[in-house]
């Protein structure tokens, strides 16, 4: 008898669970917080208002812009913070908090004139003192440790008037200007890590660790023309790419950056997308300090054995730009065209070069790949296959990215590896990786001419001459086959139909102030 009641209890419980699970589909919208709110706005079918939900694959490393280094975090928090300058789609520097700037003839003194009436999110006015505080903090001028080596070049920073800041450099550094996109923070405010305050188009609302970052429209944004149209942005942390595609299909995500071609096919007509080079350099680095990669002929032979178009077709579904040096054409002004075809696949010539190097019978090399990046792992497979044509046997060793950072990146304990360098605004940051005494030159590339060119370019204040020097440096990287430069894979961002306005930048950035939502 007792067991029968237990049986009934089971059935009741099960039915209850199921009814609760399936009932009231409208309630499902509750899970997205303010979704109902956004739908009301959509019904108005105007371009104003609404909520945009963006899927991000990684968590925030730190809300404080000076302590964070992750690209994803930067692209989210960039909407909260503004710098003196900003970048447009072509990588050109445009005024932001600074209305204009002037550089002294000797190239060491930068004077920034701030816009009037710029307000932080807490209501206080942004003045030259805040800029001085921010730059002093970054450069370690207030007695503390410098927070960024990029600002160590700053000798002093002074407020001439409430709207005028003068930055003096220790020596000429033409790469400095692009660094002024860095966030300006309110003076003496020390709680950026928990409640960030900036002067950007969006205000920080809430961060639920591992779940979502919520930003709301800054009604008092100083740049009236670019005041956000949408009311709220929700960055949803979704580590699994397949799940984000399904979530988008179910209408729970509006913008999905970094979507795969298959994902796009799966979503079909319900979305539209923007796609283009992301200013990344994917390469197979060869440790120039170990045998046999210390021999330029071996490095050239490897370059000649590889057909990059095949890699782009198989690994990136044809969506990538072939590279011949450590620079993407996304950096239009500084890019040296033509280098990408320097090493057309030529097996015979590659074999000859190996023969000259005394390695006619080939050799075995270890290719270390960070297993967290399927893209690089796939690339490794294709390369291994192509290299077998010139009798180079490749042993692919997959290691976790954490170990990769330690073994390969910091200590250069590797033979060859595949990685992608993310884009920077200034060519110096891109090309400095190959300077002999640069701390993170894990390629161990050494070339005096190259070092000299980069040094000269940094001192050069004339833009055109500077570009010429950087182009020359790129040619050396190709001639010396410093690495096997592969491609700049396209970055595709999918948007739900009705969501518009997102653009592509040479750095990872969301111009959410331009985004509109309609039904």
């Amino acid at each position, binding site marked *: 008898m007792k*067991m029968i009641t237990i049986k009934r209890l089971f059935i009741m419980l099960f039915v209850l*669970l199921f009814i609760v699970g399936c009932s009231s589909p409208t309630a499902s919208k509750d899970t997205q917080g303010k979704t109902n709110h956004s739908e009301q706005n959509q019904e108005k079918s105007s371009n104003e208002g609404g909520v945009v939900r963006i899927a991000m694959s990684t968590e925030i490393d730190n809300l404080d812009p000076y302590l964070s280094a992750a690209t994803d975090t930067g692209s989210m928090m960039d909407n909260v913070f503004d710098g003196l300058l900003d970048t447009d789609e072509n990588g050109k520097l445009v005024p932001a908090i600074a209305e204009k700037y002037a550089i002294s003839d000797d190239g060491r003194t930068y004077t920034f004139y701030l816009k009037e009436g710029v307000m932080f999110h807490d209501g206080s006015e942004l003045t030259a003192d805040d800029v001085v505080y921010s730059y002093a903090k970054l450069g370690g001028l207030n007695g503390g440790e410098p927070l960024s080596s990029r600002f160590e070049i700053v000798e002093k920073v002074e407020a001439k008037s409430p709207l005028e800041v003068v930055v003096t450099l220790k020596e000429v550094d033409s790469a400095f200007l692009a660094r002024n996109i860095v966030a300006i923070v309110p003076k003496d405010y020390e709680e950026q890590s928990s409640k960030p305050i900036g002067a950007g188009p969006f205000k920080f609302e809430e961060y639920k660790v*591992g779940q979502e970052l919520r930003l709301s429209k800054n009604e008092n944004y100083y740049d009236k023309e670019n005041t956000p149209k949408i009311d709220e942005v929700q960055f949803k942390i979704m580590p699994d790419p397949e799940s984000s595609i399904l979530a988008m299909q179910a209408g729970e995500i509006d913008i999905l950056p970094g979507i795969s071609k298959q994902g796009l096919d799966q979503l079909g007509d319900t979305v539209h997308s923007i796609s283009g080079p992301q200013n990344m350099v994917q390469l197979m680095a060869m440790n120039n300090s170990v045998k046999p990669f210390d021999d330029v002929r071996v490095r050239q032979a490897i370059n000649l054995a590889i057909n990059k178009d095949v890699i782009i077709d198989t690994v990136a579904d044809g969506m990538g730009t072939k590279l011949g040096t450590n620079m993407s054409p996304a950096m239009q002004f500084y890019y040296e065209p033509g280098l990408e075809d320097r090493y057309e696949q030529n097996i015979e010539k590659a074999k000859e070069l190996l023969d000259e190097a005394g390695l006619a019978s080939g050799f075995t090399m270890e290719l270390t790949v960070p297993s967290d990046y399927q893209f690089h792992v796939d690339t490794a497979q294709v390369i291994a296959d192509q290299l077998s044509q010139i009798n180079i046997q490749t042993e692919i060793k997959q290691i976790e990215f954490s170990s990769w950072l330690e073994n390969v990146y910091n200590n250069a304990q590797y033979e060859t590896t595949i990685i992608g360098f993310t884009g920077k605004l200034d060519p110096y940051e891109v090309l400095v990786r190959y300077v002999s005494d640069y701390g993170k030159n894990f390629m161990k590339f050494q070339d005096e001419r190259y070092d000299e060119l980069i040094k000269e370019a940094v001192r050069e204040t004339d833009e055109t001459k500077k570009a010429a020097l950087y182009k020359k440096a790129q040619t050396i990287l190709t001639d010396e086959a410093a690495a096997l430069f592969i491609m700049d894979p396209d970055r595709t961002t999918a948007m739900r139909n009705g969501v518009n306005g997102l653009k592509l930048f040479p750095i990872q950035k969301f111009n959410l102030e331009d985004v509109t939502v309609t039904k």
Partner: protein
Amino acid sequence: MKYALYKLSTFLMTILLVSLIIFTVFQVLPGNPAQIILGMDADTQQIAQLEKELGLDKSIGERYTSWLSGFLMGDLGDSLKYQQPVLDVLKDRIPVTFSIAIYSILLTICIGIPLGIYIARTDGRWISVFLSMFTQLGIAVPSFWFAFVLILVFGVTFQLFPTFGYVPWSESFIGALRSYFLPSLALAISNIAVVIRYLRNTILDQAKMDYVRTARCKGLREKTIMYGHILRNALMPVLTIMGLIVADTLGGSIIIENVFALPGLGNLLIQSITSRDFPLVQSMVLYIAILVILVNFIVDLLYKLIDPRVRLKG
């Protein structure tokens, strides 16, 4: 009392041993937490600054002893990655994993046990054969696959459930039940299959026993025999399995949490291992160990409840 003390001492030994193993493994693994947190584009300055803040400039032995003494005083230390007390980090995550675990175990019991009984009673008929095939499939197919199928069917096609994320219980009870339903079901399916197969087999075994024949001879109704006699005995091994399933659920949640973008313990465990967040990993392993031991203890108690012949022995 003696029993409890014995359990407690094995428990403490396990924790100590586990923490030592984790510690050793962390020594062998390459990777600098500060560098991992900040990534490839970090300045050497930023890294050095963070290392100092995290106390990584101290020797490894020093860090372990300070963690151990802190733990003994009830202080779990600070997470390296999140730079806040471990307890604060866990506080938000524990309810998520706990909800999935309990929900999926409830589903396992509510679906698995009645179905197991049903299949045993209809043994030999085509429906039973059909269901057995189904359970075979349930065991063989991994949970993340079920997860995707469930999202596709219930989330995308019928839009009955959210495809990711969760609603806290405090916000809306129904909303929470709904948001946890798919992940819990995905996790429960293989467990349900296991329970069904186990229960069916033990029921069929028990049905051949002498006491069942005796009961029949006494003229008891089939239902009374089944629920009053067979099931009581058949549930014992299932209970053992359930204990294992609870531990298994915690492991399974790692993948499920990733698929449903749920910030739970499984998700956190993976991340804290990849970021070499020693204090956090230690505390989580500790937490899981406590839970598994606790569940085993509860199972022991339940044995007695179902079968009064069992006496707890030390």
